């Protein structure tokens, strides 16, 4: 039996998926995904990829575009080219300079406990910014 613990599932740049996806190890999204992702391992959203989904995973690394809520049990990394719109809950968050992020944010060891991406309100349901100042939550 082949060892699958270090395998990475790659969703190619010309792939468009709608629906639910779950995986145990690592998945790298190069194309487009719409729906719901739940993972025990890591989700990598590559540069140029689009992910319109609520994501639950241990680790999430974003270089592309994500629209939806993310709950990460361990770590979320928004790299310099990342653009994210949605709520974010993670034990650890790393945001590089240049990343775009619009949404509610909870970070800390206790933040991810008991949170689920589907249970959070979507970014659209939250108050939007008024002119020149952040929205009041």
């Amino acid at each position: 039996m082949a060892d699958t613990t270090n395998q990475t599932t790659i969703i190619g740049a010309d792939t468009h998926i709608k629906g639910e996806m779950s995986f145990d190890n690592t998945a790298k999204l190069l194309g487009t995904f719409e729906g719901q992702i739940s993972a025990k391992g890591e989700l990598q959203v590559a540069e140029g990829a689009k992910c319109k989904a609520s994501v639950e995973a241990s680790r999430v690394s974003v270089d592309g575009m994500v629209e939806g809520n993310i709950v990460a049990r361990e770590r979320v990394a928004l790299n310099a080219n990342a653009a994210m719109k949605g709520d974010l809950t993670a034990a650890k968050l790393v945001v590089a300079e240049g990343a775009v992020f619009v949404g509610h944010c909870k970070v800390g060891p206790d933040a991810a406990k008991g949170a689920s991406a589907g249970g959070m309100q979507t970014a659209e349901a939250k108050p939007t910014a008024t002119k020149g100042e952040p929205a009041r939550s």
Partner: protein
Amino acid sequence: MAKGGTLREVQCYHCGAQFEISARAMTVSCPKCYKKLLVEDVVIKAAQGVTKLQTCGKIIIEKKGRVTATLVEAHQGLEVHGILESKVLCGGPVVIGDKGRWKGDCRAPSVEIAPGARITSGYFEIAPANQSDRFGLSALPGPHNKPIAHPDPPPNPPPDPPHAPPHENSAP
């Protein structure tokens, strides 16, 4: 105008007017609204409870610093290595250090969050000035983020003609 010194551009955090001041100036008055402006960097080393903390420069909250306010506005940037509880409007980069603790909303062109930082709650709007339109965000304050966030009110519309015909879709 300063004699032979270098100039820097600042934006009034009361009315939004942009103007140049001497690079060495610490406080100035806005030439448009005449209100006093703090333009130097602010370093917080201990606990401070204030209503508003505003500067045209940068705010640095050190490890033992704590700011509890309703609004923190820094046009050049903000560094949090201690505790911050406030709504934040920042024209420069926001840096939350690994020991930083954050509670409150934030609007800034960029943010750097180090692993270990804790964000209790907050609505974040982080987008560089050139991408803010893409996310439906208005311009941020600060000299690097034009256009000005507080535009002048539009001129009054011309009065209607005295005997204008009724609109076709108007209610009877």
